[in-house]
């Protein structure tokens, strides 16, 4: 929903107060450390409103009456109406010019999910404040209303936005419009922004591809200490060790407190094999299916990472090895955000760890062209076009 923001005069300013006049082209001299957008505005045209149309019609009517009667009082009214019209244009133009606008996008933006985009708008004008500004970062975005920005003042806040597609998204312009002063015209200008964000794939509420955990989960040693069952090493007791881990027999034998370190069990792993070798996508429906599969992969990856899994993402041309944590989450999202269809290939795409759970995703899963999963893989689930899960193998 669009918001209304009053002037942020009371908002705590992180930057020191401006002490010098803005330069003509930018607000870099305002004392704010942030790089403000240049204040050159590009006209976006002027649109007459219904009120403006009525005003023009009335002006024509008065003009006809004045011409017909030669009554100078009516000429005076007509002159005044024209003067107001001219003033409206001048004030409207002045109102949307001389602004410096910055946007502060959030760290993660997902497709089709609303997000709050921080903005700050500074009026570089010393003569007049700014009234009734409608600001939006993109043409398709819903505007935010700034009823009043004081002279050389600043207004900041957040506006809600939604980007429907994954991938790079460029905020090329900030669009500012205003009906001020008399509502006759809607004057619009845009300001260069050149701000680019990476939109991650859409995340579904629940992942369609949730492979079962293999039965041998924890059977393999990891060769480092942990909380598994197998013995990893015996060592002297240190402060902070859990007393329950004291090896009493060895303690009795050696006379010193011996601590039994256990070996960590094998981490739970998921390999997401996304075969993007689908060739040229034929139509919009195929493209939608492809996007949906990417979203399924992202949803599954995020879901498993959140549950402590190490997740591997294998695609044609780029593979992210098993890892967990925030960095892996970002890496997977970035890879999936930029993933594009690759030329068709028939060689199978496999994960690095054949014993890990595996989610195989391909646009043409189940079709004769798509090679079957290797027999040695224990847990393989395939997500086909519409997110239908298909069991392709059972653990031996």
């Amino acid at each position: 929903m669009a918001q209304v923001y009053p002037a942020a005069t009371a908002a705590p300013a992180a930057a020191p107060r401006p002490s010098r006049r803005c330069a003509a082209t930018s607000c870099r001299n305002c004392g704010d450390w942030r790089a403000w957008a240049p204040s050159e505005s590009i006209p976006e045209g002027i649109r007459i409103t219904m009120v403006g149309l009525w005003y023009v019609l009335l002006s024509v009517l008065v003009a006809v009456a004045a011409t017909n009667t030669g009554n100078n009082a009516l000429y005076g009214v007509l002159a005044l109406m024209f003067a107001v019209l001219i003033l409206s244009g001048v004030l409207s133009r002045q109102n949307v010019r001389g602004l410096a606008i910055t946007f502060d996008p959030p760290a993660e933006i997902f497709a089709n999910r609303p997000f709050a985009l921080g903005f700050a708008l500074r009026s570089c004008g010393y003569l007049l404040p700014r009234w009734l500004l409608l600001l939006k970062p993109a043409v398709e975005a819903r505007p935010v209303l700034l009823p009043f920005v004081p002279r050389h003042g600043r207004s900041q806040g957040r506006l809600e936005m939604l980007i429907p597609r994954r991938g790079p998204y460029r905020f090329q312009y900030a669009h500012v419009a205003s009906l001020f002063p008399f509502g006759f015209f809607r004057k619009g200008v845009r300001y260069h922004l050149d701000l680019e964000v990476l939109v991650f794939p859409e995340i579904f509420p629940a992942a369609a591809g949730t492979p079962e955990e293999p039965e041998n989960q924890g059977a393999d040693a990891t060769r480092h200490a942990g909380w598994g069952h197998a013995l990893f090493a015996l060592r002297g007791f240190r402060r902070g060790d859990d007393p329950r881990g004291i090896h009493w027999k060895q303690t009795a034998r050696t006379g010193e407190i011996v601590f039994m370190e256990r070996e960590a069990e094998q981490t739970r792993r998921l390999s997401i094999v996304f075969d993007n070798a689908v060739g040229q996508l034929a139509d919009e429906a195929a493209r939608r299916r492809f996007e949906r599969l990417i979203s399924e992969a992202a949803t599954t990856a995020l879901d498993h990472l959140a549950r402590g899994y190490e997740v591997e993402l294998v695609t044609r041309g780029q593979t992210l090895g098993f890892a967990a944590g925030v960095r892996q989450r970002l890496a997977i999202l970035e890879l999936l955000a930029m993933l594009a269809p690759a030329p068709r290939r028939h060689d199978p795409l496999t994960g690095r760890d054949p014993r890990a759970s595996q989610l195989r995703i391909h646009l043409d899963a189940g079709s004769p062209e798509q090679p079957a999963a290797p027999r040695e893989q224990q847990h393989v689930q395939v997500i086909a076009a519409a997110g239908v899960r298909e069991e392709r193998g059972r653990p031996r």
Partner: protein
Amino acid sequence: MSRERRPRPAAAAPGRPAAAGHLRFGREKRLLVGMLALLAPLPLPFNDVVGWPVLAAYAAAVILFLRRARRDPPRWLPVWGMNVLGLAYLPLGALDLLVINRGHLVGPVVHLGLYALVCKLFALTRERDKWQAVLGIFFIFLAAMGTSVHPTIVIYLGAFLALSLILLMRLTYFHVLGDFGRDDPALARVPMRWLLASTSGVALLLAVPLFALLPRVRTPFIVGRGTGTGAVLEASGFSDAVSLDSIDQIRLSHKVVLRIRHEGPGAPREEMRFKAATYDLYRGGSWQRTPPHGTLDRRPGGRFQLSPVAPAGWISVTLQPLRSRSLPLPVEAVVVEPRMSTLEIDQGGAVSFGISPLEVRDYRVGLAVRPVLLGMVPGPQPDPTLDLSGVTPRIAALAKLAMGQGVPLDQARRLERHLSSSYGYTLDFAGRSADNPIEDFLFRYKSGECEYFASAMVLMLRSQGVPARLVTGFLGGEFNLFEGDFVLRDSNAHAWVEAYAEPAGWQIFDPTPPAGRPLQSSRGVWLLANQAWDFVSFRWDRYVLTYGLYDQLQVFNWLQARWHSLLGLFHRHGAEARAWRSVPGGAGATSAAGAASGRGAAVAALSPWWLAAGAAGLLALAALAWLLVRRLRRPATATAAYRRLRRQLARSGLPLPPSAAPLAVGAQAASRFPAAAPAAARVIDFYLRESFGGERLAPPDLAAVDAALAAAAEGLRLRRAS
């Protein structure tokens, strides 16, 4: 039995989402529209378009509406109720049109508009209703403006403009806030008082040139002068038929009729007599105008020669519309330049236009030293100046007695003295009968005003065979300090006698006692105030009400002349400068050449090109000084100091990309300019504290920043020097 309560309309609840189409911000919008509606018809009763009772009733209804709007009740007049009220007005409207106003449309239409507006105000429940009400207000405003001629209408115009702008701005705010689902009126309370004041002022100023330039294709329509639509009293003294009290009616008014400016040197005349119309036939207590004798010949230059006498001086006259064809001319007039194609002259020598002019007329008049009376010499055949209508035996007997024996000139003078000394001047005619007013004046009441005196003298002269006629015009005048003109008002209207008195010919006789002659007006503060108001109203009449196509042409000509003179200034100076350069011997030559060269040098020095170049140079110097001051000024923040440091580094050969972080800047500066590194590091440290730490630096810190910046600059300078 309990009755179920109906829910309140959604529009009445502030802060609650209103139903589609319902009025949002209803209280504020109603108050704004109501105030504008209260103001709109204010001039109408002054213009006699509606009566004061109608305006009072309307104002009471609007005030009631405003009080109700202030309380903001939920229930207002429904649309069907408004329609019923509209239907109820139909018989009233018919009565108004057919009986009260007897077929005149303007009054009933305005009454209907006011009634409809009041009904609409009480039925403002939807968004579109407010615009319909505003439209109605606008038409009332147009009616008020279109029928107004008084200068004070400017005050009304300004007030209406300011209130309209407030309304438009607030409605725009409410509209946008409503679109954003915000029904809190506090959001619209943004400071815009100064904007409104300045916008109204600028709009009025901007309207002035627009008013002057809007193309006029029709003659300005003059409703009239004076109050409102204006009575036409001023025409009564100079129409084709005048009664004996017409001048009396005019003299009650103090409106300026003529403005006279003397051209050339010489003291302006204190007393001037302007002849406007002559009357020969007296019928039943009123005079019939002398018919036109023919048209005057138009000479080259638009000049009409009245007499072969050469003019000894000239005056410029500005004539306000008289509602008469009469062209008032001084009795000394011999030439007139009226900017008209034709002029008529009657047998009595009074000059008139072909048609009654509706706008201000300017004309020049050439004057002789003495009065030049242009009446035709009476012939042997029956002459209208000897018409004995209205002459009774009693009048003839009195005339014979008063005139005595002698030549007609002496007789006429004796009669003039007799009337002015034996009769009194009065403007009180209450109770007098109109059966035989001249006889009543001479034998019963023995008092009257100028027309009685003049009429009596004309009849008495005719009774004794002396040709005579009544003349109306203006006498006297006053000097207006504000305008520098002599002005003649309606109160200067006068009537006198022209008689053909042998052996002198046509002569002026004024039998009115001195107390009744409209000579010099009284002096004092009141006169000054009157003259100041005349100054304003004349300009209002001249440059607003009667501004027309010819005035526009004059404006364009004036602009064109100014433009050419400006261009000519450059060309002339250029030519003179070239002439100076071509003088043999140049600046060092002797005698005449030297003097010429000296003057030429001065001309060349004062040439506009040099002046323009000098101004540009001064501007450049000012810009340079500003830049220097800006550079030398102590930075007010560490951020500014840091930015200046970066500029200094760039000038010293260390260009840094905008993305370079402060610490990277410091590191690079240290590697390239070790001498400046400690100072640069101090500047950067302060900058980081201020920008990233959000710390507001104290004055000692700022002084330290300044010192560090200076040290860094010195280090960089040493490096550059080495």
